[in-house]
């Protein structure tokens, strides 16, 4: 057993010096995070009801998914960080294997090869698993290394990052591959990657952009072009973005009122209950509603960062930090694309957009945060 791991073990076993634990700590739930998440989920359901065209069945389906996702969160919160640490590599390898499997025999849905189907049992996207496995793996690797990471560690991390990201990007699922990549990058950044290296990587990334462009699918290129000039094809590729900005803009400060948004209710807004749901919020609740939801998200992010800072070991810190920042990136990319300042990539609004897999992953991530937070070794006074 390696020294760092034994330290972790000791930490979890260190019952010699203990303070009285609160009920929340006993059930390994962070009340702040839970409260904020529940408020967000509830608000999301309210918006979803309107965005789905007032179909209660859709909301019920979402509630079911939230049930599953919250269970996943609670279960993960019970696991100790050491268990998570141990699972990091197997999980990563399993994810990788499934990505390869998808590449070979995956199910094609929505024009991209993303789904893995075990007939009659389950149908899921391995790339979702990667969203958690990736930061865990990189953090687990760096956990044993002196920080800030040296060049060799960075290169190893780059390999860990590159293989699944390329596989996901090939599906093609640019949005998810960017999220997975950013999860790994956040680990490195939080681990103290030197500014000089960050600069170098930024230059490298910029240089790689044309390469990325050449490897893009036609529809992905179209999205970028449309983003640069939506009016070039107002009834085709530009339609989504014109309609979503129109929805948000017409909402004004106070909004048109719940279920009263004409853009959303009259179906001018495409994908209104999935990727573009924030436009419904913007139209019906206006700037006020948008600010409230952004504040809610910010509070969750801040709580996540606090948890990360209170974590007592490298692994916990890095995983918590990465999960939190990735969550924010989700938000930023989604709102950015719907409001027309980022190209359209298929990223849902976290925990609000309709759809199961991403909320399960996200809440599982928050489960990990809670696990890290609630399994701290209590320091002596």
């Amino acid at each position: 057993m390696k020294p760092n791991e034994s330290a972790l073990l000791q930490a979890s076993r260190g019952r010699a010096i203990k303070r009285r634990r609160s009920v929340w700590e006993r059930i390994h739930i962070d009340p702040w995070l839970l409260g904020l998440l529940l408020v967000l989920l509830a608000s999301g359901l309210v918006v979803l009801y309107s965005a789905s065209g007032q179909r209660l069945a859709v909301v019920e389906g979402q509630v079911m998914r939230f049930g599953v996702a919250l269970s996943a969160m609670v279960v993960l919160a019970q696991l100790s960080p050491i268990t998570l640490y141990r699972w990091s590599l197997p999980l990563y390898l399993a994810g990788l294997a499934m990505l390869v499997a998808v590449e070979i025999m995956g199910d094609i849905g929505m024009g991209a090869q993303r789904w893995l189907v075990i007939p009659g049992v389950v149908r899921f996207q391995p790339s979702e698993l990667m969203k958690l496995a990736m930061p865990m793996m990189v953090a687990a690797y760096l956990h044993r290394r002196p920080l800030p990471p040296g060049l060799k560690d960075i290169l190893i991390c780059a390999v860990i990052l590159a293989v699944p990201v390329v596989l996901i990007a090939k599906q093609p699922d640019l949005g998810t591959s960017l999220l997975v990549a950013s999860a790994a990058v956040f680990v490195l950044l939080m681990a103290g990657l030197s500014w000089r290296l960050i600069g170098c990587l930024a230059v490298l990334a910029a240089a790689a952009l044309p390469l990325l462009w050449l490897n893009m699918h036609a529809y992905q290129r179209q999205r970028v072009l449309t983003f640069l000039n939506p009016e070039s094809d107002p009834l085709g590729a530009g339609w989504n973005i014109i309609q979503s900005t129109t929805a948000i803009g017409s909402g004004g400060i106070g909004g048109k009122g719940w279920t009263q948004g004409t853009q959303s209710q009259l179906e001018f807004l495409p994908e209104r209950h999935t990727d573009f749901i924030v436009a419904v919020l913007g139209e019906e609740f206006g700037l006020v509603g948008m600010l409230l939801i952004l504040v809610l998200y910010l509070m969750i992010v801040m709580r996540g960062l606090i948890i990360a800072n209170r974590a007592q070991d490298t692994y916990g810190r890095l995983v918590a930090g990465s999960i939190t920042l990735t969550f924010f990136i989700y938000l930023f990319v989604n709102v950015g694309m719907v409001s027309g300042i980022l190209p359209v990539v298929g990223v849902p609004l976290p925990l609000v957009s309709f759809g199961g897999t991403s909320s399960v992953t996200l809440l599982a991530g928050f489960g990990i945060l809670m696990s890290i937070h609630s399994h701290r070794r209590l320091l002596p006074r």
Partner: protein
Amino acid sequence: MRKRRETLKDTEQEVRVFRNRSLLAALVVVLMTGGLVARLVYLQVVQHDIYITRSDKNRVRVEPLPPTRGLLLDRNGMLLAENRPTYNLTIVPERVDDLEETLGLLVDILGLPEDQARVFKERSRQRQRPFQPALLMSELNEKQIAKLAINRYRLPGIEVEAQLLRYYPDTDIMSHVIGYVGRINAEELASLDKGDYAGTHFIGKTGVEKEYEAVLHGEAGLRKVETNARGRVLRELGRTDPEPGKDIVLTIDKRLQKLAYQLLDGRRGSIVAIEPATGEILAMVSSPGFDSNLFVTGISYKDYRGLQNDPDLPLYNRAIRGQYPPASTVKPYMALAGLENGVITPKETVYDPGYYKLPGFERRYHNWLRWGHGRVDMHRAIVVSNDTYFYNLAHDLGIDRLAEFMHRFGFGEETSADVYGAASGLMPSSEWKRERHGQVWFPGETLSVGIGQGYWLATPLQMATAMSVLANRGEWVTPHLAKRVDGETITPPKLKEDIELSNERWWNLIDSALEDVMTGSEGTARRSGQDLAYRMAGKSGTAQVFTLSNDERYNAAELEERLHDHALFTAFAPIENPQIALAVIIENAGGGSSHAAPLARQILDAWLLPDDERLDEAGAATEEHEIHETE
């Protein structure tokens, strides 16, 4: 040892770095969120007005509500033009993904010939605004509607729309008077009020339908509707109801019209009857008629060619556009011209050896009776329709005084109030000839004009109008077709001055001469004047057909028939209280007194005799015809 130290972690430094990076991350998160907020403020506050307009433009559509076209009724309230519900096929090209494919599919589904797709494509362009339906096809039958309903899902943007379509019962007898409506063409579209005609597909093309288009059409309404992204109407946001077109009661008596049409019996000709006291046109028939319903939805090329190439020219409205030499029917007016200008006196006589010679010339201008009528005064000249007397009169009068006087009876002028497309005929004068032909007027030409031939041309409507003025003893009434519009009686303005003679008694002289035409022992129409139950004034006319027009083909049998004289007759009755004045023309029928007069007599009998059943028989026949139509 050194190697091991390298791998040792500096936990404190690590925590410090992490804290710094976290703070930095928090800062970046806040800044990025600020970026989003800035964008939202820009969209929702700064550009809010633009986007609210844009979203309203998305959802609110203004739909025109076409008014219902006014009905046309005869003077007794019988329907002459109505609106029947039919089903139209319309297309909104904006909602169609692939126009070619959809139109091809439509042609397939409806079982139409393939070239119809081209017609559809043409029609799909004919509209005034985007997102407005264009009419592809009218009068879908039940089967087609059913087929379209089944295939609806394959045909986005295609709608079957209920619409009122113009229908003309008894179309043959009324076709020329009423005219017809047809699809608005590009030229008309350019000159129409876009708002008022936004939902209207049809417009009056000829006849009363054209003349009273503005009254019959009404005013379009509109409704604002909310639609979803697929263009489905969800609710009405507001509406202005259309102002329906006004019904027009015509002066025409459908029974009389029908009787007149039946009397012509398919021959080329025309009958126009006017109520002298009012100028109301009681009947205005041009024979043969045609089915104007064919034109409403767009006549097929074949049908149109058929009508166009028919040697009897059914599309030609003889009553108002047929310009015939008025022939001897002008003799009463000529006599009045002579009296008024002091050229003749009633008792003065002229000897007729059977011809007239201009002083100093040898050429003989023949009387219709080769051996002459001997000595004739004005009365006898009219009764026997002596030509020599009127050659002499015309020569003494001179063309310009003659023409001036005839203008007072409306010859050479269009004097009707609301008869669309009425021709003005031709009243020649020396000035006219100079301008038209660059030649001086020859005295010989005056002689032809004196007996209503030569350059003189008049329409049946003009002849009937002149007869009305004569019946009124010079009081002018303007002939018109609309009796009541929306319940209000129409009195058209007097377009010409009343004719006041120097001696009122001269009217009586003319009346008595015209009565003797019917009943005198020498009267040309005495055979039609037997057993008259009322006092009838009549004048026959026989117009010579001199030349063939260039476009007529040579056909021995037909040529002969077409060289026959036109039979004319003008009449009014009863003399003491004229109820009806009329003009009858039958082309190439021969003498007016033997061929046109009997028709005039029958019409007058039918109109004037309370126990005459012919009108009601014509009415009954009409109803029977209608029943047959609907079967």
